[in-house]
């Protein structure tokens, strides 16, 4: 087929592109993923009973803010990676800011703590299950985020997959915060982060073949 014939084929009877509808469709898929993560959290783990007490503690909000800023950051980066020619710029570096702030808090907490209680600040009571729980909670959002990304056109598929995975991981961490009793900054800076990095890593690996077009 000559190029001119291909052009005629592509242009013939071309249908209008409804950007609004495409955005609604993506929002609906992401909404379903988020709902899946929330339902999984409520039905599988349940909301902690002492949530009202926990909400009085600054570290509870710091934990939520940590996951929420990473969520917004990952969403922003994923959005830019989803369209050809969008500048990603320094947005990925901005993702390091909440991590560094939390690590600073963790360093202060460890520095002020008595030596014998430092182990508890780092390991808490649930370090063995925290990352895997966050990764499992993120699964519905993970599927949704990659699904939406697949309908777009990332020119860096692995990176786009990683950003989608981090977005899902941050949602998982946010949901997990309503169950998990751990509030120590060192714990969150290690195990929550690890939990979010599992889907990010998986997204990067899957993205490098799933998101090609």
């Amino acid at each position, binding site marked *: *087929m*000559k*190029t*001119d*014939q*291909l*052009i*005629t*084929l*592509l*242009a*013939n*009877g*071309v*249908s*209008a*592109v409804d*950007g609004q509808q*495409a955005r609604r469709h993506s929002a609906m898929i992401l909404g379903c993923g988020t709902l899946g993560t929330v339902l999984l959290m409520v039905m599988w783990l349940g909301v902690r009973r002492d949530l009202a007490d926990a909400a009085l503690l600054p570290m509870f909000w710091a934990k939520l803010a940590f996951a929420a800023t990473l969520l917004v950051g990952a969403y922003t980066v994923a959005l830019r990676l*989803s*369209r*050809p*020619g*969008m*500048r990603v710029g320094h947005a990925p570096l901005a993702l390091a800011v909440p991590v560094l702030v939390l690590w600073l808090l963790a360093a202060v907490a460890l520095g002020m703590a008595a030596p014998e209680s430092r182990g508890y600040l780092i390991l808490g009571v649930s370090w063995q299950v925290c990352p895997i729980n966050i990764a499992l909670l993120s699964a519905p959002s993970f599927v949704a985020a990659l699904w939406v990304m697949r309908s*777009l*056109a990332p*020119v860096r598929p692995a990176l786009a997959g990683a950003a989608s995975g981090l977005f899902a991981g941050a949602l998982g961490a946010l949901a997990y915060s309503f169950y998990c009793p751990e509030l120590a900054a060192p714990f969150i800076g290690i195990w929550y982060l690890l939990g979010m990095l599992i889907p990010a890593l998986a997204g990067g690996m899957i993205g490098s073949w799933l998101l*090609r*077009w």
Partner: protein
Amino acid sequence: MSVNANVDVNVNGTEIRLRALLLRGLAGESAAYQQFLQDLSGRLRAFLRGRLAGLPDEVEDLVQETLLAVHNQRHTYDAAQPLTAWVYAIARYKMIDMLRRRAKRDALHDPLDDELAVFTASDQDAGDARRDIAGLLDQLSDGQRLPIIYTKLEGRSVAEAAQLTGMSESAVKVAVHRGLKKLALLIRNAS
């Protein structure tokens, strides 16, 4: 300096004109869209010929592959974004993809980041594509191939195609969309 200024003006003129044509095409104006693709194909050909000096046989195949990619991903163009950047990113992606597939790693050492160059020259003299897209079209399932043939090759309306295939009109549109995406996949796998 003045030469550069001239190039900038030309690039800008092309950007403005092509962008206007694409936006009309996105609104469903077939003639404007055809003109957009026609003009774009010339720009892509010149750009890719310059970049693939060592692989002249690949150029026309890659022009076609990029045009199909532009068409299939046209919903990702944001009107607030420079068209040059969008087209360049797609062309570059498809070129690197092709080079990877050829597994000629030495070819990747070319500097590939010259965004403005994509609109600086045009070459309407199409060489022959080596790959036959019509042949690949035959590999699609009837459910995707027939809607494409009716609406795209024979120029029938969606309603007519729906009647001929016994599908609903929206199913015909979806089949065309999916079929052209499948075609892009077949092209990738064929080379």
